[in-house]
Structure formats: structure tokens, C-alpha cells
């Protein structure tokens, strides 16, 4: 499980960097790019919280509290950038 999470995190990181390279050529698609990158951030955050921090075995409120951080912050950042 840990190895799978590590692999997912590495792959998602590389994907976001490759996307940056691609979207540099097409600035008009920046909104889509920011949404995708922030979705990747939320996914990576979920993996760290659930698997590395082991909050998938923690009381539900604590898991939700931490999960809300990796959902709200990227969402707010997306709104600010795409406003």
C-alpha cells in the first residue's frame, strides 16, 4: 500500500510538471491547466493524509478536517487564479 501511494505521488508530480511544459505553449488553456494541477494537489493530499498519516483509520472528524484542507485550499487558489 505504501509503495503504491509513493508511486502515485511520484507519477502525479511528474504529470503536473509535464502539463506545465505543454501548457506553456498554449496559454489560452491556462484555466483548464490550473484546475487540473489543483485537482492533482487534492489527490496527492488525500494520499498523504489517508495512507502516510494513516488517517483512514482515524476518527472520521479528524480525517474530514485534514481532507477539507486539501480540498478548500486548492479550490480557493483555483478561484483566485481564474477570477
Amino acid at each position, binding site marked *: 500500500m505504501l509503495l503504491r501511494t509513493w508511486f502515485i505521488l*511520484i507519477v502525479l*508530480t511528474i504529470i503536473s510538471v509535464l502539463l506545465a511544459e505543454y501548457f506553456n505553449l498554449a496559454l489560452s488553456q491556462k484555466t483548464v491547466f490550473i484546475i487540473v*494541477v489543483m485537482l492533482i494537489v487534492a489527490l496527492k493530499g488525500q494520499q*498523504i493524509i489517508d495512507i502516510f498519516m494513516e488517517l483512514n483509520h*482515524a476518527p472520521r472528524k479528524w480525517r474530514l478536517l485534514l481532507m477539507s484542507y486539501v480540498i478548500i485550499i486548492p479550490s480557493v487558489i483555483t478561484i483566485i487564479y481564474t477570477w
Partner: protein
Amino acid sequence: MSQEFILMNSAVLNATAISPTKKLPGDMAMWFFILAELSVFAIFFMGFAVAEHLNATMFVQSKAQVHPIAGLINTLALITSSYFVAFSVQALHKNNTKKSVHYIFYALFFAVVYIVVKVWEYTTLFDQGITIETNTFFTLYFLITFFHLMHVLLGMVILIYIAMNAKKGRYSQIDISNNIVEASQINSKNTISGFESGACYWHMVDLLWIILFPLIYVI
């Protein structure tokens, strides 16, 4: 202490403290500290995003001067470091202290990689004449990344501390399989809670970088 009391405490432990399901890893105090740290960084993230929104051209030009490969290496280093810390906790759950300490040292190695790359990055920027006063982007860049670097250093101190304690045998998983535990185990802090707290702090440092990296280097 009577056998009856020990059995009673064991039952309580079974029901709550070390129940395999729905247990918050580490100490509650550490989690409040983690929440406070996350809140502070949330303000930094918002501030950075708003500043970029207000100074879009300057931020795009300035971002071209930072090194995305350095940011990528640091992301990979912190993720791998966190992976080894998580492995270390699992090893300690199985009472394999030696393996647990080894994994912490692997995690520390990748933390050192992060620091070396970060120092190289700062040095390269300074050589180009870029400082904290260059513009708003670099003010925020140095403030946020240096603040994060301080957390990495504190995290490393915590990792070294918990590794040393583990080596001294101060953390061990209480075996409650037969419902009889030593009274000293029930009343002392001889659990892995402290170790888990340190590990969760390190994962928080990783979590913050996961947001910081795209904000500064990718978007």
C-alpha cells in the same frame, strides 16, 4: 497492583486507546499544532495567489527565473522521505525497532537532499543578484520557502529525536492479544504515540510542499 486491576485496564485499552480501528495516530496536542501550522501556511498560499493575481506579468517573468527542476527534485525527495517515515511507523507497529530506525535514517537522507537543492537554488538566485527585495514575487518566494525550510529542519530534529528514542527502546507496541498487560505498560508512556506524532509532523511538512510546489514552480 492486583491482577483484576490490570485486566480491567487492559479491557479499557482494548476498547479505546489502542483499538486497531478509529484511532488518531500520535498525540492530540501534536494534531492541534499541525492544524495551527497548516492555518499559517494557508494564509501564505492565499497571499501568494492574490499577489500573483494582482501582478500577473511580474509574477510570470519572475517565475521564469526560478528552477522548476530543483522544485521537482525537492518534491520527489520529500515524497520519498515521507514514504520511508511511513514505513518506519509500520515497522514499529510490528515491534521491529531496528528496521524502524533504519527507515528514519533513509528519510533523513532525502531530507538532506532537499536542503542541499534548496541551498543551491538560493545561492544561484543570489549569484544572479536576486534577493528578497527584488520584487513582490521574490519577497514571497523567499519568505514562504525559507519558512518551509525551517519546518523541514525542525522536522529533521524531531525525526532524529524519535529515532534515538526508538533505538533506546522507548517505543513499543503493547501486546493486548491475551488481555494481560504489565501495569507499567498501562500507566507509562511506553507506546508508539510519540513516534507517530513525530512522523505525522513530517508528513505535514510534505503535505505543505505538495501545495507550495505547483504554486511557485508549476502554475
